[in-house]
């Protein structure tokens, strides 16, 4: 197992950091929110794809870079830091993983190069209720036609290709397929999503059953946990800076022990979670047989940490933290969406216990 990035991965992370800080700082999300774009930023997506970020895990034979999950996780962490609104996670990680793990040769040939180039945005539609519950699906597939409904599909409002998970099977649905209805959701994190309805919609079956769905979801969970570590780290650092500059009672508030201890505990929590996420990404690249455990560990811990970090960001900023003008609220809102997607802390604690045999 390794926790440190190799030279290639570090270069990628550094270039991602520079790019997102310059081209997609939090002000970009704020501006697009104010303009009611609901997560649509095709110009940014073209630039992201132009840098090769959409093809990081796609094998070279399909036009990607074949660099693996540690590398993509490093990029996703940087997108988390500045709350980049892009389908990078949905398409370059989840969509690409689904095709790599469950695509037929023809499906891979057709879609992976387009996902790697960013020409096609893919996403995974899995949940049908208010909570993550991949086993519970009422989806029906007969004669090449899919019938059913999916809720709160991440980037579902902008996806060109939808990978639909039933209880035991996966299907490919093109974004313009007849019988597919999208209801665009205006979401708290300003990224947008969609409820999807399939009424005898043309769909192609993919390979694999429940175990493959689980494997794809585990990749989604680990990748999102990487983004969440970025969000939590940035929220913590913003807060830490504020503690060093905000003065009350004639001194910086970071000098007060009550606040110092809260900051120290949050920092500890964040460091422990970062280790879990790095180990989980590494487990994916090693094809370890404990990926499921790592995925639940990483997603549960990342959910708890980003939850605490964003709450503390608001509280430790005091009044300004409650205002829309400050970024604290943007981190808080994205955090809750990321926590819920692909299962929150409670879901993954339960799953972890089951995996450990109790």
């Amino acid at each position, binding site marked *: 197992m390794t926790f440190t990035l190799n030279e290639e991965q570090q270069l990628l992370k550094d270039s991602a950091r520079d790019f997102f800080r310059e081209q997609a700082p939090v002000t970009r999300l704020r501006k697009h929110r104010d303009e009611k774009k609901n997560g649509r930023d095709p110009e940014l997506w073209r630039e992201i794809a132009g840098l090769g970020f959409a093809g990081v895990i796609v094998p070279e034979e399909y036009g990607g870079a074949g660099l693996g999950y540690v590398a993509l996780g490093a990029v996703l962490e940087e997108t988390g830091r500045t709350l980049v609104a892009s389908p990078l996670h949905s398409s370059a990680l989840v969509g690409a993983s689904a095709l790599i793990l469950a695509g037929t040769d023809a499906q891979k040939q057709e879609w992976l190069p387009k996902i790697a180039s960013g020409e096609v945005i893919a996403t995974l539609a899995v949940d049908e209720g208010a909570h993550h519950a991949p086993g519970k699906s009422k989806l029906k597939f007969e004669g090449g036609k899919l019938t059913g409904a999916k809720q709160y599909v991440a980037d579902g409002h902008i996806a060109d290709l939808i990978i639909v998970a039933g209880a035991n099977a996966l299907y490919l649905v093109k974004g313009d397929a007849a019988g597919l209805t999208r209801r665009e959701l205006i979401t708290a994190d300003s990224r947008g999503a969609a409820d999807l309805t399939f009424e005898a919609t043309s769909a192609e079956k993919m390979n694999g059953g429940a175990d493959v769905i689980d494997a794809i979801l585990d990749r989604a969970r680990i990748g999102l946990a990487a983004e969440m570590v970025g969000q939590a780290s940035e929220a913590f650092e913003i807060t830490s800076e504020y503690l060093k500059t905000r003065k009350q009672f004639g001194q910086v508030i970071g000098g007060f022990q009550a606040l110092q201890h809260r900051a120290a505990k949050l920092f500890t929590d964040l460091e422990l979670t970062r280790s879990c996420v790095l180990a989980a990404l590494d487990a994916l690249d090693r094809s370890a047989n404990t990926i499921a455990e790592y995925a639940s560990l990483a997603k549960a811990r990342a959910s708890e940490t980003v939850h605490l970090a964003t709450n503390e960001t608001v509280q430790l900023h005091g009044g300004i933290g409650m205002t829309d003008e400050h970024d604290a609220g943007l981190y808080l809102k994205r955090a809750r969406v990321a926590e819920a997607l692909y299962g929150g802390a409670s879901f993954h604690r339960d799953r972890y216990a*089951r995996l450990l045999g109790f």
Partner: protein
Amino acid sequence: MSKDLDAFREETRAWLEANCPPSMRTPMTGEEDAVWGGRNYEFKNPEAKLWLERMGAKGWTAPTWPAAYGGGGLSADENRVLQSELKRINARPPLFSFGLWMLGPVLLEYANEEQKQEHLPKIVRGEIRWCQGYSEPGAGSDLAGLQTKCEDKGDHWLINGQKVWTSYANYADWCFCLVRTDTSVKHEGISFVLIDMTTKGVETRPIKLISGSSPFCETFFTDVKIPKGNMVGRLNGGWEIAKRLLQYERTNISGFGSNTRVDVVDLAKKHVGVSDGVLEDRDLRARIAAHKMTERAYALSVQRAQEEAKAGQNVSHMASMFKVAGATLNQDRCELMVEAAGNRALGWAGEGFSADDIATTRGWLRSKGNSIEGGTTEINLNVVAKRVLGLRDTQ
């Protein structure tokens, strides 16, 4: 390099195969199996003695210390191989020692050549058992407020005062001790000295804890004379050494007390019950799951810190973070075990309770010290906030 490491792994494996006695490859059954060494140590198991002698002779009780001082002279990579090979055969640590964990590293950094030659090899071989003279009745969290007086009497130092929480002082051969050599200043008036516990005027008195055990002592120094050569570092330069030693200490403790023979999950399954593969008490199950995750996160973080540590300096203020996290983790584990075991963990003695039950109870009580010994959690959070995060009173 990896080729050399492969060869080293092979050699190491063969050596361990030939030299690690069978009973030393079984899990320790409790704290009583820990071998502490020293002049008067009584080995309960002759194989434990053999194992210590063999590992000590090879310097592998202190694998990365220079061979010139009896250490193993291994590189960090070689040490990782050694540790993984030891783990592979479930080898018990041959020696538990404050000399190895705390004093040795600071002697390597601060002591003169004569002191290193004198003390390090004996630590490696487990011949001398050390205790730590830090806290005093009036100097707990405010350690630098210590008052044990050390006067220059020309050809010797004269020491008068009292230490407290001196772990196993009643068994120790020597004591590394913080003393006051200048009363006009605080931190800059402290020196670091080494005291032979057989010297006239040294007395120890064990302190009984809530767990029933007595790992700590009060230690009294009355007109104790020690040689001038027993001061480490410069006169009044002891505080820097004291703090560095605490970093080593905090890296190595936090888990005392837990009954490691029993896993909390197994205990819960046994006493709470399972239906459909799931613990019947769902609330307890969720809390155990969260604990298991923290335990894993902590282990991974220790591994990550070792990987990230550059050669040479391998301790830092981050030790305080690990101390806090480790202490909290162990205390949570002990609380969950007591809760899972129900009234089985609420016995104290006698035949109505198994040895494991009693160990769970006593371990839980002992673990209360985890967030106090080696610097309280509050003091360590101060260190993290100030030294790691840079939060200060004035900016």
